């Protein structure tokens, strides 16, 4: 089936099998491998990206469901000149990662969270990131990074 998806500002028209997952489409068809597959069962959040501005788990979405949508992946957050998004900077400055595997998903979930709650409390951030797991147990600095990005 033919789909038309705008990914990081670039429109793509692609033929996909209906069973193609959105994460598979961005990684394999478009070569955007910043979005990771972790648990593959919509638990860990490593595959989080934005569909029409909201974080979703792209391992539990078909590419055909995103037909017509605007998708943003971690590659689309940084400026064209390579300058980091404020959330990426905040993760770097607050040591919000160790191995880095969960980081793209964390950053995408966190930017979506700040759109919904621009001025969050620490509890808002912890609850808002409940869909993202970090096996390095780096939650403390991740929460610090999100609060720093929100200006706290």
């Amino acid at each position, binding site marked *: *089936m033919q789909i038309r998806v705008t990914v990081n500002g670039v429109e793509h028209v692609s033929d996909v*099998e*209906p*069973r*193609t*997952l959105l994460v*598979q489409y961005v990684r394999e068809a478009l070569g955007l491998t910043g979005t990771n597959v972790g648990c*593959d*069962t*919509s*638990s860990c*959040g490593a595959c*989080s990206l934005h*569909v029409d501005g*909201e*974080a*979703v*788990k792209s391992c*539990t*979405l*078909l590419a*055909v*469901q995103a037909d017509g949508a605007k998708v943003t992946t971690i590659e689309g957050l940084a400026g064209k000149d390579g300058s980091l998004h404020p959330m990426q900077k905040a993760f770097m400055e607050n040591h919000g990662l160790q191995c880095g595997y969960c980081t793209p998903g964390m950053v995408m*979930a966190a930017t*979506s*969270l700040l759109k*919904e709650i621009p001025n969050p409390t620490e509890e808002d951030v912890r*609850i*808002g990131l*409940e*869909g*993202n797991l970090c096996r390095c147990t780096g939650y403390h600095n991740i929460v610090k990074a999100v609060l720093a990005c929100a200006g706290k």
Partner: protein
Amino acid sequence: MIPAAFDYVRAGSAAEAISLIGQHGSDAKFLAGGHSLLPLMKLRLAQPSVLVDIGRVKDLSYIKDAGDHIAIGALTRHMDVEKSSVLAQHAPLLAHAAGHVGDPQVRHRGTIGGSIAHADPASDLPATTLALGATYVVQGPKGTREIKASDFYVGFLESALAPDEMLTEIRVPKMNGAGWSFQKFNRRAQDWAIVGVAAWRRNGDSGVALVNMGQTPVLASSVSGALKSGASIADAAELAVAEASPSADNNASVEYRTHLAKVLVRRALEQASA
């Protein structure tokens, strides 16, 4: 994990969706947000030959004040139920419970109708709407009919929906002035409840339903009956499992679930009475 191959068709309206599901037979499934169905398909626990995508039927996404009840379109997402000012005013228990489904990413896609039609006894919204005495409106080739939540859940992941019927609306009675509580006990925030309780009280009346305490969501009528005849909260909570038939799994034995249900019902009633 990639689902087995299937044909994909898109419906623009409820009528078209019902016609498409009729054409494709009992092997076809509706796809709404996909957050119950796609995980099953990836694990090959479900292998429909056709998916009828109803996710673009926009006129089934609404929350309306309909006089004595609130009408919620089946395709309303959990996030929109959670944040609804209409529900916050008239049925806050449902809005609160919707905020406990999965995590924000899941709530951006999953729908209230999808969750109810999936009829998972471990899900939050089947039990919550059961406690609230909701009515579900379903549409089929012969027209629409209403099914009470208390008649809807017939077995594990099994509902009173016919294969060619689609859930279109959830009607929740207004609960202004009722005390309420939602208790969800789990190990990770995003998980299903090991045991959950949705409860409300108003004057002498109450509604109590249990999550993950049997093959279907369970209406704890004995608890409400005891409260009505003047029993204390502690005594009423002892009857929590009278209608339940819990099973054991990795998280809990039958004994543990039984104990937990009594404790959580007591806590819920205390909170709903405060």
